[in-house]
Each structure stands twice: as C-alpha cells, then as structure tokens.
C-alpha cells in the first residue's frame, strides 16, 4: 500500500491529517477484503437478514396492535362531547331537577331563499317568539345568518316540513328545568355557555361539569316530596297574609343537609332572564333579617350552658328594663316574676336581656361566633349572605341581640345555629350535597348534650303551652319558638311592618341523637286577617303554616306519628320539674 497522495509533507498538518483520513477510508474495503476470511460475507448477510427480520417483526406487531387497538374509544362512549355539557341534577331520591336536552339553532342563507315574504310569514307562524326584526334582517342580508336558538325537536320538525330552501339547523344543547318554579332558588340556573349562575348550578359547577364527562348525575340533598309540601303550604300562607316575601327551610339537624328550601316569590329557571328581579332573590340565603324572639332560643341555651341561669332561676319582669336611653318592654301579659321555662313561653324580652347582661359580652359573642352567626352560613351556595353586625357590643346592643334585634342574619345561619341546639350541641355546616347514610359530618361542640336535651323540652313546652301553640302537629312532637320583629324603614321602626317567623324542631322528644329535623317559616311583612283577629305576629302567621308543614312532611321523612298522649304536656313538665337536666 502506498502513502496517501493527498497528504504531501509540504502541506500544513491539518490538511495532511485530513488527506490521510480520506485515503484510509477510500481503501478500507480493499484492506478488509485482503484480511477477510471466506466466511465473512456470509456472516454479514446473515446479520443483515436477522436485523431486517427483527425490524419486520417489530413493525408487524406494531401494525397489528394499531389495527386492533387503536382509535379513541371516547368517540363513541355515549357521554356528551360538548365542552358546555352539564350533568343532570337530581334530588336525593333520583328525581330529575335539571338536564341538558337537545335543541336547535335556526340559520337562514338569503342567497338560497326564493320567496322572502312567504318564508318570513311561514317562520313567524311557527316561531312567534322569533324577533321579526332579526328574521327580516337575516332574510334580506347577503350571507348566512343566525335567526333563533333553543328550538325544540317539534319546532325543528315543523320548520323542516315546510320544505323552504335556505333554512338550516345546528345542534344547540340547552339546560332544561322540567319542574319549572319548583325549588328554583335551590337548583338555580346556568347560562347558554354551560356556566352555573345561581343556586346549586353555580355552587356545584365543577362537579356538574365533571360528571357530564362520564355521563353521570349529581344528587342534591333536596327531597322533592318535602320541597313540594313546603312550597305548597308556604304559598298558601303567603297568599293568605299577602306577604312581601316568605321563607321556608327544612334541614336535617345531624347531617346539615338542606332537604327543602323555598323562597317566595319564586321564578321559572327556564326563563330566568324574564323573571322579576324581586323573585330572583333567594331570601333563605341572600337576605338577612332581625329575627326577633327566635333568637331567645340561643339566649336561653347560652344561659343554661354557661351556668349563668338554671331552670328554676326567676326574673323580675314587672317593670320595663332601662339601659341608658333604651327601655325594654315585654308584650304585656301581666307578668311580675317568671321562671326560665316561662321566659321562653311568654317570650319575655326583659328576662332575655337580663340573661344576656348576666353572661356578659364576651360569653355571648363567643357563643354567637361558635354558632356561626358572625359569618355567612357555611354552605356551598354562593348566595350565602354575611350578617349585619353591631360595631360595638355595648350593654344596649347585648340586651337587644338577646331577643333578636341589633343583629341581622340569614335564615340559613339561623338554621345551622338552631340545629346545634337541637342535635346534642354540635354545630354542623349546612350542605346541599346528599350525605350518604351512616356518614357523620364533622362539627364543633357548642353546647353540652344536657343543654340540648333541656332546650328540646323547653321548645316542646313552648308549643304545648306558649306562643307556638298553633304549630303543633298531632303525633310529631313539634317544639319551637315564635319570632316577630318590627322592621326599620328609613331609619325608623315601622310597627305595621313585621318579620314574623317560627323556628321549629321535630320531633322534640327523644334523646338528642334521635332523628330530628329543623323547620323555619318566615314571613316578610304579613298582613293581619279577620281570622287572626288583627294579629300578624309569628304565632298567628308562621306557626300555623309550620304545623301544617310538619304534619305533611313528617311521614315523608320516615317519622312515625305517635299516638297523641293526654299526658304529653304533663310529661314534659315533669321532666323539666325533676331537675334532671339543669
């Protein structure tokens, strides 16, 4: 082998190195052939064959796998592929509350329309809701234009059967609320882009969208049967007393589930945009009220639980209580001295104020805070309103708050707080999600079980003997407290405008851990009638409605109507008199 001809010694080192490398590469085959054995070529052929064989084998496996198992199975999964799709909402028993249904959008291409006037008349006859101006603009335009959306399959078929040229449809899935006004404030509504705007639709928006991917549904805590009974009785009472607004709420005191929620007036979520703004207000969550005497439930429970008062404590109510410039009166029943049960039974403002003053601001506000009255009620609903609180807890404010003035809270907050009084003393957040049987939501202890037991008996006694007598539902052992508060209008108390309410628990008998429900009926500005002898207070307006509601929903909630014992009243009195509780 001769040396490389491209690398003479006169060239620079780099050029010589490059020339040598090219030369060696050029003659590599010659060198290999000279040094090779006769079997090398066969080995190379065999190696190449094996390599190609392996490559073909791998490609074959890949092709087979692709042919058999490729493709997006979700394409035909049956779940809605629309990014705006929302899962159905159901009540706790599976009854349908909200669902996406196929609708259609109508488009017109004026370049294909032969008879503009005929087409306009035909469409107007089938679609009276279509805007004439928009239809005319679409028919006389120059390009394809949208006319109207939300057409039902029937309307689509009717238009299609006209056989008119230039008309076309596009799918338009719409949210439908088949129950109309029923539970409208709890269910809420969503926009056409699939975003929840109010109620559960907004509160559980992420869950609803997620469930839509799998084709599932989202169950709410609502019981449609209970809701229907509540709405029916609330509507009748609202009409009877020509109220400005009304509230009905039923919750499970142990799980915090909202079983029924009614706000009067209501609206049709299928056409929420056309609803009266006043009807859109969810008075259960969005509105705050000075509750009046229903707050005495908290005051008496706090007094007992803190050890400030006992059942046999007595209060002098013979004279109005004056604190600074404020004078607190009782509704005149000719009382001079009241024991604790009769403070509740006679709804004494003076005694309630004295209990609160004896406890002091720190103790009272500590209980209020633990009862969730200093914040918006803990529930998924975005509408849950914050309370209106006094800036300073002076003696005046403390006394006023003890009977439900000076502090305005939402009915949801009252429900969560009263549930803590009735369920053994644990504050449990409210929820609109269905809680599975056996699940015990976490809560915080506010009252002792002993206080809770005593309060249940006091509340029952108030229905048997006190202001809540008209709320009694035979066999369901209703306990509760009335509330009537004069509204402040333009900075002045208007004695003709009341917020009348009744907060109930049923059944009130049995141990604190027994199955039990809370009911609130509230009427905003009820008017007295001849049947109520000119009264519009909670005992005459809200309490009778509460009794009817309990009587109807008790069996639906699985409560057995107990035989009405002649000694019912005596039994409660004996239990309280025995001093076994406090």
């Amino acid at each position: 082998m001769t040396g490389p001809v491209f690398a003479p010694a006169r060239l620079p080192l780099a050029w010589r190195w490059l020339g040598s490398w090219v030369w060696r590469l050029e003659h590599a085959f010659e060198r290999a052939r000279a040094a090779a054995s006769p079997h090398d070529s066969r080995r190379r052929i065999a190696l190449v064959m094996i390599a190609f064989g392996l490559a073909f084998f791998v490609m074959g496996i890949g092709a087979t796998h692709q042919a058999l198992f490729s493709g997006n199975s979700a394409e035909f999964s049956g779940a809605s592929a629309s990014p705006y799709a929302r899962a159905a909402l159901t009540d706790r028993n599976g009854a349908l509350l909200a669902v996406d249904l196929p609708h259609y959008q109508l488009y017109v291409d004026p370049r294909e329309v032969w008879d503009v006037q005929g087409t306009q008349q035909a469409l107007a006859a089938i679609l009276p809701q279509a805007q004439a101006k928009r239809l005319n603009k679409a028919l006389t335009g120059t390009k394809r234009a949208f006319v109207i959306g939300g057409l039902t399959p029937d309307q689509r078929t009717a238009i299609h059967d006209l056989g008119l040229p230039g008309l076309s449809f596009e799918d338009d899935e719409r949210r439908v609320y088949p129950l109309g006004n029923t539970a409208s404030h709890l269910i809420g509504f969503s926009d056409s882009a699939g975003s929840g705007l109010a109620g559960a639709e907004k509160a559980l928006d992420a869950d609803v969208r997620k469930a839509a991917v799998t084709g599932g549904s989202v169950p709410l805590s609502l019981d449609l049967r209970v809701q229907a009974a509540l709405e029916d009785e609330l509507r009748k009472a609202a009409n009877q007393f020509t109220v400005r607004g009304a509230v009905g709420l039923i919750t499970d005191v142990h799980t915090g589930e909202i079983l029924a929620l009614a706000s009067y007036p209501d609206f049709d979520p299928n056409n929420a945009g056309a609803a009266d703004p006043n009807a859109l207000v969810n008075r259960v969550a969005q509105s705050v009220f000075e509750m009046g005497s229903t707050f005495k439930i908290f005051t008496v429970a706090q007094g007992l639980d803190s050890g400030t008062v006992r059942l046999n404590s007595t209060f002098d109510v013979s004279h109005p209580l004056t604190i600074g410039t404020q004078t607190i009166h009782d509704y005149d029943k000719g009382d001079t001295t009241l024991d604790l049960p009769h403070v509740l039974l006679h709804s004494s403002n003076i005694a309630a104020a004295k209990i609160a003053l004896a406890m002091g601001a720190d103790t009272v506000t500590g209980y209020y805070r633990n009862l969730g009255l200093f914040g918006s009620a803990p529930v998924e609903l975005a509408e849950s309103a914050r309370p209106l609180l006094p800036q300073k807890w002076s003696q005046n404010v403390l006394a006023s708050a003890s009977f439900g003035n000076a502090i305005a809270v939402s009915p949801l907050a009252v429900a969560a707080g009263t549930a803590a009084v009735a369920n053994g003393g644990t504050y449990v957040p409210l929820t609109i999600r269905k809680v599975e049987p056996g699940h015990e939501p976490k809560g915080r202890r506010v009252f002792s079980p002993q206080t809770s037991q005593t309060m249940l008996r006091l509340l029952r006694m108030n229905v048997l003997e006190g202001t809540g007598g008209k709320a009694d539902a035979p066999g369901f052992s209703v306990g509760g407290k009335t509330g009537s508060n004069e509204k402040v209008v333009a900075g002045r108390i208007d004695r003709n405008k009341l917020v009348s309410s009744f907060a109930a628990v049923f059944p009130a008998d049995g141990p604190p851990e027994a199955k039990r429900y809370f009911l609130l009926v509230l009427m905003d500005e009820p008017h007295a009638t001849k049947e109520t002898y000119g009264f519009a207070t909670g005992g005459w307006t809200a309490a009778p409605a509460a009794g009817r509601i309990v009587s109807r929903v008790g069996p639906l909630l699985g409560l057995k109507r107990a035989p009405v014992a002649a000694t019912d009243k005596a039994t409660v009195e004996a239990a309280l008199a025995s001093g076994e509780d406090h």
Partner: protein
Amino acid sequence: MTGFFDRRWRGFRVVNLVGWGLLAAMILGVYLAKTMAWGERNQIASVEIQIRQEKLRIRLLEAEVAHLEQPRRLEALSAGALGMAPIGPKQEIALDDLHRFERQKPIPAPTLAEPPVFAQADVGAPGVAAKIAVAGPVTTQFAAPQVTQQ
C-alpha cells in the same frame, strides 16, 4: 450454518423461500387483522351510537315525566279536578293498628256494577265541564328527538 444457506429446493435457496413465505404470511396476517378489526370497530361504533340515541331518548322521556309529574301541577289537578287535599292525621293509620279495622260483618256477595248513567243536565253542567277541562290531556314540552344515524 453454511449448509442451511446453501440448501436449495428446485434451484431456489430454501432460506429465500422461507423468507418470502414469512413475508407473505405477515402481509396476509396484517391484512386480515386490519379487516376484521375494522369490521369490529364499525360494529362497536354502531352499538355505541345506538346507546347514545337510547340515552338521549331516555333523557327526554325522563324530562317529560318530570315535567308532567311536577308536584305543583299534580296538586292543582288533584285539588281542582278531584277535590283532593293533603291527608290529615285522622286519615293515617299505622300498620300495627290495622287490626282495629278487622271485619265485623261478612263481605257481601259481589254484584255486577251497572254502567253509570249521566243525565244530559249533568254533562252540560258548568262544574262538570270545568273539571273535564282541567283534567284533560296536557301538551307535552319535549317531543321525541329526531336522531339521525351518523
């Protein structure tokens, strides 16, 4: 090894024949696999579309039922047409108390019911007409979907 590569059958190297045979088998296998898979895939797609259509129909029917059974409507119908009202405590009885209603008299022999005879005046009475009007059929909100095969 050398013998295997040199072996011939009717002038063709055996190794080549085996290679061609394997290639033909592979091509045929892939073809058959793809063909069968395509058929299965079409069948699955067809079934999935049917399922989707059925689900849609079920959804529509459920919505229709929910609309027709909405409590407010049923209450209005039952109260307006039938004069019904929520039951009271005296109309309820527990299962254990049913023995209080045990039969005191033998059951009378069944008699064929006579068809009711309506007087012309009854049919034409305004109250009857109103009840019939209230209880009449209602128009449905959601018709069956017009689903086309995709």
